[in-house]
């Protein structure tokens, strides 16, 4: 039976198409009767690069896991291309969605190339070892993530930024149109943050896929994302164009920090800066807690 299903999955036309990911009245709770997240309704369309922002504990990671079908909602539905994601066999789902967890996986004494090659698993239903095609896809993904030179290096010898690039390359090698990345820029320097998001941007740019990325840096979202989602206390506070969603007044309400906008000539906001005196207030608040 399983083999049949695998065969069917293999017979599937290879480039998994992406039309939309939609969440309908999604509710999730770790304990019954106490919803932790939702109700949330949300739609991700092709070519969109969503930045998911919000305070710690707002439910960003949970939302991302729900999007990938890793968690089961209490009620509501996650639909991929119009079909429930939980009805989809996991291996088929893996050809549609690739996920990068917040905590990077343990990689033992693997080389960068091995890590990327492992991501080809969803395509190897019947053959035990990697095909030449898998090897080529992994090589290509490493190059696209700007990690081509790291190919033979052991993961334990890589810096945080290099390791993150390799894991991003693994996501690309999985060749799924929808990328769901949980804080891929955490603990990276400014340059690496921009590089990582550029890779995602390039991937999404042709309109065949989409990306949902949890971020903490408002300015990165303003710079790279086409859409932003602001999550507060498990509910959507705002969603849409980053410049509107990440409005300084709203950010003040959500984070309790006052921001000054930096605007271009035409009035669009390109960045926000934490107000000098407000940073001071925050420090005091934290101390008095």
């Amino acid at each position, binding site marked *: 039976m399983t083999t049949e299903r695998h065969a069917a999955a293999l017979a599937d036309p290879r480039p998994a198409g992406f039309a939309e990911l939609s969440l309908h009245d999604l509710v999730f709770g770790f304990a019954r009767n106490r919803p932790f997240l939702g109700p949330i309704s949300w739609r991700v369309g092709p070519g969109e690069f969503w930045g998911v922002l919000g305070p710690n504990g707002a439910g960003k990671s949970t939302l991302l896991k729900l999007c990938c079908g890793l968690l089961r909602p209490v009620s509501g539905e996650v639909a991929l291309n119009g079909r429930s994601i939980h009805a989809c066999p996991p291996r088929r789902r893996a050809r549609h969605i690739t996920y990068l967890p917040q905590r990077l996986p343990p990689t033992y004494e693997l080389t960068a190339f091995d890590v990327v090659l492992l991501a080809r698993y969803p395509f190897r239903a019947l053959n*035990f070892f990697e095909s030449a095609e898998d090897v080529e896809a992994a090589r290509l993904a490493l190059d696209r993530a700007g990690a081509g030179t790291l190919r033979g290096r052991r993961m334990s010898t890589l810096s945080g930024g290099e390791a993150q690039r390799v894991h991003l390359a693994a996501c690309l090698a999985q060749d799924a149109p929808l990328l769901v990345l949980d804080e891929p820029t955490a603990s990276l320097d400014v340059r690496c943050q921009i590089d990582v998001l550029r890779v995602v941007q390039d991937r999404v740019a042709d309109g065949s896929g989409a990306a949902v990325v949890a971020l903490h840096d408002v300015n990165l979202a303003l710079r790279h994302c086409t859409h932003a989602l602001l999550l507060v206390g498990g509910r959507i506070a705002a969603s849409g164009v980053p410049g509107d969603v990440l409005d300084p007044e709203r950010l003040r309400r959500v984070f309790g920090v006052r921001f000054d906008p930096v605007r271009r000539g035409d009035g669009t906001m390109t960045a926000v800066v934490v107000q000098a005196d407000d940073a001071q207030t925050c420090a005091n608040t934290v101390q008095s807690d």
Partner: protein
Amino acid sequence: MRKHGSIRLRLVIGLLAIGALLVLSPGVGSDRAYVGWCDAWRAAFDVPPDPRHLLTKPRTDLNADGRIDDAEIARYVLNARVIGFDHRLARSLLALVVGATLASCGATFQVLFRNPLATPYTLGVASGGALGAMLALRFGMLERVAGIPVMTLCAFLGGLAVVALVFVFARRSRRLTSNELLLAGVTLGMFCSAMMLLVQFMSDERLTFALVRWMMGSLDTVTSARTAELLPFVAPAWLALIASAPALNQYRLGDELALSRGVRVVRLQVICIVACTLATAAVVAHCGPIGFVGLVVPQLAGRVFRWDCRILLPASLLVGGGFLIVCDFLAQSAMGAAAAVTGRRLSGTILPIGVVTALVGVPMFLVVLARRTGRDADPDR
């Protein structure tokens, strides 16, 4: 993972080594039958034994007249065939199957629980099996049902019962996390050990002696039929484990990532645990708990064959089988060698295999641990 060439070479070398051990095995034994491996194979293929060779065997010249007649040769050939194959080769085959099973189950458990201390016995298979066997012995159930000794059946059922209980407890917590399974297994194992002590305390000396001997593990066998009895339990488990290897590779990256890449994590855990439990229970029921193979061999195999489960599991099968054959050779010949050196006849001609695996395995294991350099050391292995 990329050096498939060198890994293939190593696997071929491993297979050849196992083949060589099996070829030699009709010549190794504790019994003083003086059957050499060459003679045994000659007998098997109806090639007459070399007369010059025969003269050096003390027992062939039965009439002690210095000449060997045809009847004596026929007797020798029969002897060589029966002892070489029905006893010694069958024993080595059993060692191969048992060692391969314990080692591959050990490797799987170490991956599954992400804990290098996990062994095929971790979930209480051995303790439950031992308790079952002990109860059967205690209440004198020594008859056979359908050709299988009741004691073996009880050991099998005991092992399975304990693992089933562990499952029930672990499922209560809704998620099948490794630590809960380990804790439940170790705790129930302790309970079984205490029960065994109690049964021992309440039985007479003769029974206690038999039980203690059983606990040391043994590969004593009369025919290859016993090995064949084991295969229906063990071979499907091997296949299931090797087929799960690509999914286990993903599993090593963490539950979430594995799930997102299309691995049904809980199903993988259940398949592996059930397969390992059935195989281990069958082995324990046949041979008693043979310790240490499941702990040491995956580490040794992991040093040689690295990280990839698709390589590690078959490698563990090979290394485990070879390791147990060699240990069994030592177990059979150690007392003979000691007797030859000291010139005294020593009691008990075959050492318990469980003792030998520990005596051989511990130094090997420590050497491997000590040779781990900083670059290779990783906390998860």
